[in-house]
């Protein structure tokens, strides 16, 4: 199988009222099937923009980008990926079950298949029994889990996650990280994951992409030697701390450019 995502010399310049802003500059990256790739960097480093390019929510102004061997927009139309946003963004007029069902309705799954999938993915994110609740009746962590279930419902092989746990507290975040790893292990999906947190990136990833701002570019790509099976206490191991240190150094080096 070929790589899932290939970017070559990707550029994106936004036209704003204050003149052009270069959000991405010469970004090249290849993601193999089943990898868990984290993007880390300060605000404005283009990590979210890159994810949005892969999702065809933004159009690059230069370079080449392919997703599943086709253009990003063709991949979007082929429903190649599930996207998890920073906020859960559940529709308040739909129940949790109804929200998870939304993509299935749009993609025209038969009714019985919809029921089965909603039940399955809610079980996967441990929200069974909350199907008939409305989003505002659930905590922030549970809402974000529901939004992950919604992205999983149609079983795309690629999952794009934009700081999905950024707004949650440390304890909930740890739990969801652990659950996400388990989910990745069971499903073998390819993950692209944007984060602000060094421990989160190191704990989750097989590959960590360190980015730096103005213009947004890749400063360093770190391959993680950690095993795929990762208990939470792996975060105290020497190997873990070593990678975290390298990520921190990479981030610092990226900043040094600015002067």
């Amino acid at each position, binding site marked *: 199988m070929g790589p899932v995502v290939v970017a070559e010399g990707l550029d994106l310049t936004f036209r704003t009222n204050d003149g052009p802003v270069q959000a991405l500059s010469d970004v090249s990256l290849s993601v193999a099937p089943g990898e868990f790739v984290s993007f880390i960097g300060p605000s404005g480093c283009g990590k979210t923009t890159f994810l949005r390019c892969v*999702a*065809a*929510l933004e159009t690059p102004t230069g370079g080449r980008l392919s997703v599943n061997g086709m253009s990003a927009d063709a991949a*979007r*139309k*082929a*429903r190649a*990926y*599930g*996207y998890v*946003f920073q*906020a859960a*963004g559940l*529709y*308040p*007029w739909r129940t949790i079950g109804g929200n998870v069902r*939304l*993509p299935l*309705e*749009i*993609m025209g799954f038969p009714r019985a298949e919809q029921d089965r999938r909603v039940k399955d993915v809610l079980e996967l994110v441990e929200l069974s029994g909350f199907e008939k609740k*409305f989003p*505002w009746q659930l905590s922030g962590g549970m809402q974000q889990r529901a939004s992950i279930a919604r992205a999983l419902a149609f079983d795309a092989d690629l999952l794009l996650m934009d700081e999905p746990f950024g707004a949650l507290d440390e304890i909930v975040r740890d739990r969801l990280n652990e659950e996400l790893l388990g989910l990745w292990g069971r499903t073998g999906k390819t993950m692209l994951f944007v984060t602000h947190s060094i421990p989160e990136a190191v704990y989750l990833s097989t590959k960590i992409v360190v980015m730096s701002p103005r213009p947004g570019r890749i400063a360093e790509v770190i391959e993680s030697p950690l095993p795929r099976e990762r208990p939470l206490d792996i975060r105290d191991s020497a190997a873990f701390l070593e990678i975290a240190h390298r990520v921190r150094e990479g981030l610092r080096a990226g900043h040094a450019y600015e002067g």
Partner: protein
Amino acid sequence: MSVFGLALLFWLAAWAVNAALARSRWRDASGVRVVVPVLFGAAILGLWEGAVRGFGVSPVILPAPSSVAARFAGETGLLWEDFLQTVLKGALSGYAIGCGAAFLVAVLIDRSRFLTRGLLPVGNFVAALPIVGIAPILVSWFGFDWQSKAAVVVVMVFFPVLVNTVQGLAEASAMQKDLMRTYAASYLQTLLKLRLPAAMPFVFNGLKIATTLALIGAIVAEYFGSPTRGMGFRISTGVGRLDIELVWAEIAVAALTGSAVFGLVSLVERWVTFWHPSQRS
């Protein structure tokens, strides 16, 4: 004079009871929430009755509520005929046509930035047109019967509903729209599953404003020509014939109708937009 004193006493007593209820621990009980406004209304009617009788006010200036009520009971046939003409034929058909057309036009022009931007000032302009100016013109176009009243109502309700619906359709957040894009949802799917539900609080805002406008429009339009029935016709001729009790009976019908229709639309709103923070209990 003693009649007025008695009424004053009743009013003070009602006030005391309401104040006590509002401070009591049952103040949130549903029964109390009905009793307090009812008692308040009854106290005002009592004071009115007492003042009219106590000071011997001429019924041509202000009839007592009891004589209005007696007239109401004696003229139910006539009042029903007027209600049928003005509310059911004029106001309701105009409301349905005006709101329905506004909703459809809002959905159709929504894709054009030029039209949605351009329509807001035009909408404000039309909303500012005095109804007494356009009603005679529409009566001369559509004739004396209820059709011209419906036309006035259409003109009055169209723009408030249109403007609110257009605003509502812009209400879905960028993230919610991006989500639909990631599903490669069609325009129609995005409209039906995201933008229309998100627009509903605004749409109902427009529909509620329109209920009041429809009733005003249908009644006032009859002042400019009407067959010999209808609430506006009865009010304008009743004043001329010094039949003030009948005028007040018509006003009572209009007030009750207005409150009932507004309440009904609010009830549907509660049912449709139960999810909105302003409706959650």
